[in-house]
């Protein structure tokens, strides 16, 4: 039960120290850690849009350019993300192909869709899902987001490990684009202001 003096719909969670704060118009400073919790929520939204669009643009070179270049006896061969997955699948490494498919292809795409959905539905103030579901979706993107780094780490390890005589594996230009894409989607998820889901007011499904 919440105190009568406090309006539950005006309560906010400080993203830094998790303290409960009362939402007032304009800037809110957390009463516990004094961090500025929310500036104008619109600012957070436009920042999230900027990060998300940058990430979407970077996703194109990340998939078109090779993420891994292997050199065998003077022959260079580049592998894109999708190419690498197909190669692994053909070689019969199904579990690894699945891990890379989920981490490098499905997770980023899912994250794009969820973030786009959250931002667009906030813009039109329409909601097919309840606030709780929106919060859960947002939480999920923050949890699964970092897992798209798997492929980059794999490339980094192979670059460090495989230079044996005439055989060498190095990162490709796609890796740089992919890293930046992951960073920008993480920035986008972190800059989404959870007050956006609150502004709709109603608690019901509608």
């Amino acid at each position, binding site marked *: 039960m*919440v*105190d009568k*003096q*406090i309006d*539950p719909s005006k*309560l906010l*969670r400080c*993203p*830094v*120290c*998790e*303290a*409960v*704060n*009362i939402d007032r118009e304009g800037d809110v400073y957390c*009463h*516990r*850690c004094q*961090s500025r919790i929310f500036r104008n929520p619109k600012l957070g939204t436009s920042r999230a849009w900027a990060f998300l669009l940058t990430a979407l643009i970077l996703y194109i070179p990340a998939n078109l350019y090779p993420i891994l270049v292997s050199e065998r006896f003077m022959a260079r061969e580049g592998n894109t993300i999708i190419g690498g997955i197909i190669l692994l699948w053909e070689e019969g*490494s199904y*579990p*690894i192909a699945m*891990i*890379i498919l989920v981490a490098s292809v499905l997770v980023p795409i899912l994250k794009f869709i969820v973030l786009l959905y959250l931002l667009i539905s906030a813009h039109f103030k329409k909601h097919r899902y309840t*606030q*709780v579901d929106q*919060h*859960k979706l947002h*939480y999920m993107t*923050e949890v699964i987001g*970092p*897992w798209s*780094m*798997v*492929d*980059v*780490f*794999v*490339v*980094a*390890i*192979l*670059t*460090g*490990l*495989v*230079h*044996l*005589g005439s*055989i060498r594996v*190095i*990162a490709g230009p796609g*890796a*740089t684009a992919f*890293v*930046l894409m992951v*960073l920008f989607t*993480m920035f986008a998820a972190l800059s989404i202001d*959870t007050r956006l*889901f609150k502004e709709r007011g109603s608690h019901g499904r509608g």
Partner: protein
Amino acid sequence: MILENSVKERPESEMLDRLIICPKCHTIHEKVAIPKGKSALCDTCKKVLYHYDERVLDHGLALGITGLLLFFVSNLFPLVKVEMLGHEQHVTILSMVFSLFENGFYVVGVTVAFMVFIFPLMILVDYITLSWLMRLKKGKQLTKELLILLSKLLPWNMVEIYLVSILVALVKLIGFMQIHFGLSFWSLVLFVILDTYLSKRIHMGELWELRHRIYTYG
């Protein structure tokens, strides 16, 4: 009536501190007392809201120092060694970063270095210093800065993802070369287990409350 008056006289922040918002679904709960060693769960999404651990600072300090030792071992020795046609090559976390630099992949190198080396190290040092200071009941302002820093660092720690990546990379190499796990690999496995446990254990809200109790009531 009496109860309502006493509630009104309290400062607003104290009233707010009796509430907690679920990190996952943002449902508002009033905190309740729970028995030792138990956790309070959100009734909407079953996410853990807080634990009752009397000796959270002792545990934190012990785990933090163990983590730091494992972290050093993980970085001092080779993670993996590969052999092929008489050639031998091993990799450590830092040599991996340097070979990315050598090949001109500065963005990838810097990002990887931060996520698997600098941030995890900062989190451990931050956590150890924090537990230490709070046990000594010193450094009120510093603990605040450390707590704020800690909450900003936590989402960027990716050691557990790195461990999975090592395994994925090795599976790609099976069949081409012989693979030997180094001492650091096993140390990294232990480190990841400990780190995962620690980050499940660190509830920022609890640490803030503890800090409030320590520096207000002594």
